[in-house]
């Protein structure tokens, strides 16, 4: 399966075509899921086969998995103390303890590629690269996509463009899987743009409403801003490494064959792409608006898969960022700061939203910030682990919000909800489980991944990242608090909407429970071995670390280490999460704390307004930047237009007119017309002359004929 991984994106691609061509004929346009769901089920099975195929491949190389994992850790700790990448001798000596065997015999990624086209001696290839990171993403994407396909049967039922919807769900799945399996950076760009297009189409699925099509447009345009960074970064990488192949670029970046300045420029440009696609400050503004799309789309594209494309891209080209931002040696860098600040900023915004999906959208931005921060502090494994768990519980939350809306008259406004826990027990339970997982409550999935990020920030590679640790802890507290607020407004209190809400059918609650199960158990994927050994799952410890980390085949990257977990930090994080829940619980349930603060305090009101207006970023973009272009720039352009361009144009026009006049009187009237008239009158005179001969009388013609013949005969006689 690892060699034939191309089947995984190919199948949904074919399903897209099949739905587009034949979808309307199945059950009167309401049966597209008969194609979409089975295909995604097959894709899911294939992804699972790929996951186990990769695990077997790694195990075959290092037969003792447990031993490999533990020795890797001791070696990593040793390297962490030895520290200096400029002393390979020391590193080799440290590595003698046993991990060196793991570094020599490592599972290489499975690459299969064919020439796409070639130009100027450069082969542009297309193919698949399967390694631990790819199979992790394959599993996440296919799982969430399959569940969303099933969920949508009920959620989008009866929609006018049901077929279109399913076609583009399949298209998105194909594009995302294609992107994830990219073997070179050209393919990556193509996949990146393809998921952007499908995101645009699906956000604007109900385009009859102007808001929706505007949101789609905004998402697309904002992403274009970042895409420029993507192109520039990829071009720099190509000219720096001389190749489009991802492994070649990684090898060269990791082994220091590319100058640091080039790597920094590439990493900086690519960070702009991460900003747009993964919703990082300040290009995150499209993501909350993207909630205009159907909720399952938000769950699939704008929570679990597409928005992590940026995180995936950083993880895929990690040596570029690691060396470019000097992640190993610094204690603050652009990527970590970007992620940390985004996480904090978005979490603050989540408090003032009334739209349940927008709360979740800001929460997604915040969690994506967490992942970017994790990558920025060198906690690669933690970032991928968090990507994995976040996909499960955030998809569950979004689908839960969709279920709530499906039940209560298609509103997402939390002011029109309330008291739903009694009528929607399944949705309520799954939503609470997923919220606890998001908040990072022991022992749910979010706790483990968030803890790893915090540990990563605390320990760093060679020096810790104290500011990032502060951001991380603060966001942990805020996350727990705003999710509790959502649960209060949605499920507690009295029902404030219209009609009678009801529980959603099994097609909706089924996927919810599956994802809630994932939110509970997802942490098992990368348990710290200290914990795993205690509960008898020693073999399952550090799955992502063991099987996915690229350091296993990047020899030159041996300075990289994974921070050992810290019990104290785990307890601190847990205490903050519980504290956040408790604070909000007291505020809403017990009516304690400063209620009506915004009415009493000017500063609180100002802060609230500031948050409600989303830091005025939209005002900045449309009001200042866009109007700045429209206003002074437009006036300047008008002045230039009137005084420079118009003058030149007028001058050219007038001189052209003068020239024309001269040409008319002299050349046209005199020469040209004279010639033409002369020719015609000459022809007329000749005609008049010859007209006489044309008598029409045969005998006259005959005489001329014979006369001419006689003359010719005489000439011939004389000459010859």
């Amino acid at each position, binding site marked *: 399966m690892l060699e034939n991984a191309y089947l995984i994106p190919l199948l949904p691609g074919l399903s897209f075509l099949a739905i587009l061509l034949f979808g309307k004929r199945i059950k009167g346009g309401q049966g597209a899921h008969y194609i979409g769901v089975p295909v995604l089920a097959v894709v899911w099975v294939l992804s699972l086969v790929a996951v186990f195929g990769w695990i077997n491949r790694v195990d075959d190389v290092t037969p003792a998995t447990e031993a490999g994992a533990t020795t890797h850790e001791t070696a990593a700790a040793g390297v962490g103390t030895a520290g200096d990448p400029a002393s390979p001798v020391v590193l080799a000596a440290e590595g003698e303890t046993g991990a060196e065997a793991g570094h020599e015999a490592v599972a290489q990624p499975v690459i299969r590629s064919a020439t796409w086209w070639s130009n100027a001696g450069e082969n542009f290839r297309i193919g698949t690269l399967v390694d631990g990171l790819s199979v992790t993403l394959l599993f996440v994407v296919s799982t969430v996509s399959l569940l969303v396909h099933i969920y949508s049967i009920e959620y989008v039922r009866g929609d006018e463009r049901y077929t279109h919807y399913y076609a583009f769900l399949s298209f998105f799945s194909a594009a995302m899987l294609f992107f994830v399996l990219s073997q070179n950076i050209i393919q990556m760009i193509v996949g990146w743009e393809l998921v952007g297009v499908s995101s645009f189409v699906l956000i604007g699925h109900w385009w009859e409403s102007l808001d929706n099509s505007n949101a789609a447009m905004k998402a697309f345009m904002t992403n274009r801003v970042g895409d420029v960074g993507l192109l520039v970064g990829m071009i720099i990488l190509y000219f720096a490494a001389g190749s489009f192949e991802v492994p070649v670029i990684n090898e060269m970046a990791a082994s220091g064959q590319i100058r640091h300045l080039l790597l920094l420029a590439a990493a900086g440009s690519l960070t702009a792409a991460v900003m747009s696609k993964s919703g990082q400050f300040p290009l995150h503004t499209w993501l909350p608006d993207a909630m205009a799309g159907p909720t399952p789309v938000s769950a699939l594209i704008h929570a679990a898969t597409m928005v992590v494309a940026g995180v995936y891209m950083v993880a895929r080209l990690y040596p570029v960022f690691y060396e470019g931002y000097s992640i190993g040696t610094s204690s603050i860098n652009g990527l970590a700061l970007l992620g940390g600040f985004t996480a904090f900023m978005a979490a603050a915004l989540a408090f003032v939203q009334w739209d349940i999906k927008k709360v979740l959208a800001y929460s997604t931005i915040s969690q994506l910030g967490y992942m970017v921060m994790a990558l920025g502090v060198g906690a690669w494994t933690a970032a991928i682990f968090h990507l994995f768990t976040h996909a499960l519980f955030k998809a569950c939350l979004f689908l839960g919000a969709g279920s709530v809306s499906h039940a209560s008259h298609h509103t997402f406004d939390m002011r029109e909800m309330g008291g739903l826990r009694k009528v929607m027990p399944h949705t309520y339970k799954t939503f609470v489980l997923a919220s606890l997982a998001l908040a990072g409550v022991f022992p749910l999935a979010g706790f483990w991944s968030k803890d790893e990020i915090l540990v990563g920030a605390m320990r760093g590679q060679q020096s810790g990242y104290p500011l990032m640790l502060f951001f991380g802890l603060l966001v942990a507290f805020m996350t727990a608090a705003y999710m509790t607020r959502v649960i209060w407004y949605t499920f507690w209190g009295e029902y404030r909407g219209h009609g009678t809400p009801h529980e959603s059918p099994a097609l909706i609650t089924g996927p919810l429970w599956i994802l809630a199960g994932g939110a509970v158990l997802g942490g098992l994927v990368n348990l710290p071995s200290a914990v795993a050994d205690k509960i008898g799952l020693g073999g399952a410890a550090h799955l992502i670390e063991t099987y996915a980390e690229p350091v296993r085949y990047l020899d030159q990257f041996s300075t990289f280490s994974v921070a050992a977990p810290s019990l104290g930090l785990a307890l601190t994080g847990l205490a903050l999460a519980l504290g956040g829940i408790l604070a909000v619980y007291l505020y809403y349930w017990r009516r304690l704390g400063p209620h009506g603060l915004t009415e009493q305090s000017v500063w609180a009101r100002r802060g609230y307004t500031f948050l409600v207006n989303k830091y005025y970023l939209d005002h900045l973009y449309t009001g200042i930047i866009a109007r700045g272009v429209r206003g002074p720039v437009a006036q300047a352009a008008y002045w230039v237009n009137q005084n420079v361009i118009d003058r030149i144009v007028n001058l050219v026009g007038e001189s052209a007119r003068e020239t024309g006049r001269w040409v008319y009187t002299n050349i046209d009237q005199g020469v040209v017309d004279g010639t033409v008239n002369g020719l015609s009158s000459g022809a007329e005179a000749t005609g008049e002359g010859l007209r*006489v001969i*044309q*008598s*029409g*009388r045969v*005998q006259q013609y*005959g005489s001329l004929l014979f006369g001419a013949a006689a003359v010719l005969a005489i000439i011939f006689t004389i000459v010859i």
Partner: protein
Amino acid sequence: MLVNQFLILGAVLFCTGVYGVLARRNAVMVLMSIELMLNAVNINLLTFGLMVGSISGQVFALFIIAIAAAEVGVGLALVLLIYRNRSNIDVEELDLMHG
């Protein structure tokens, strides 16, 4: 060999024909004059054929007689139609192609 005499006879007949074609106003007479010219040519062909000792001259003469018959047929048909339209066959008055 009476080559000269034959050639002179041919030339006289041809000139008579040319004169008839150019000068006569009666269309039938014009046709007859054309026949004279054709026969003058026949005499020339026979004479040169005899002189060279080839049979080709006589063969060509036979062809010309056959074609002359067809030509006279077509010509007389035209004359007949002209007569039916105009009640005379004066070629001087046939100047519809006058420039």
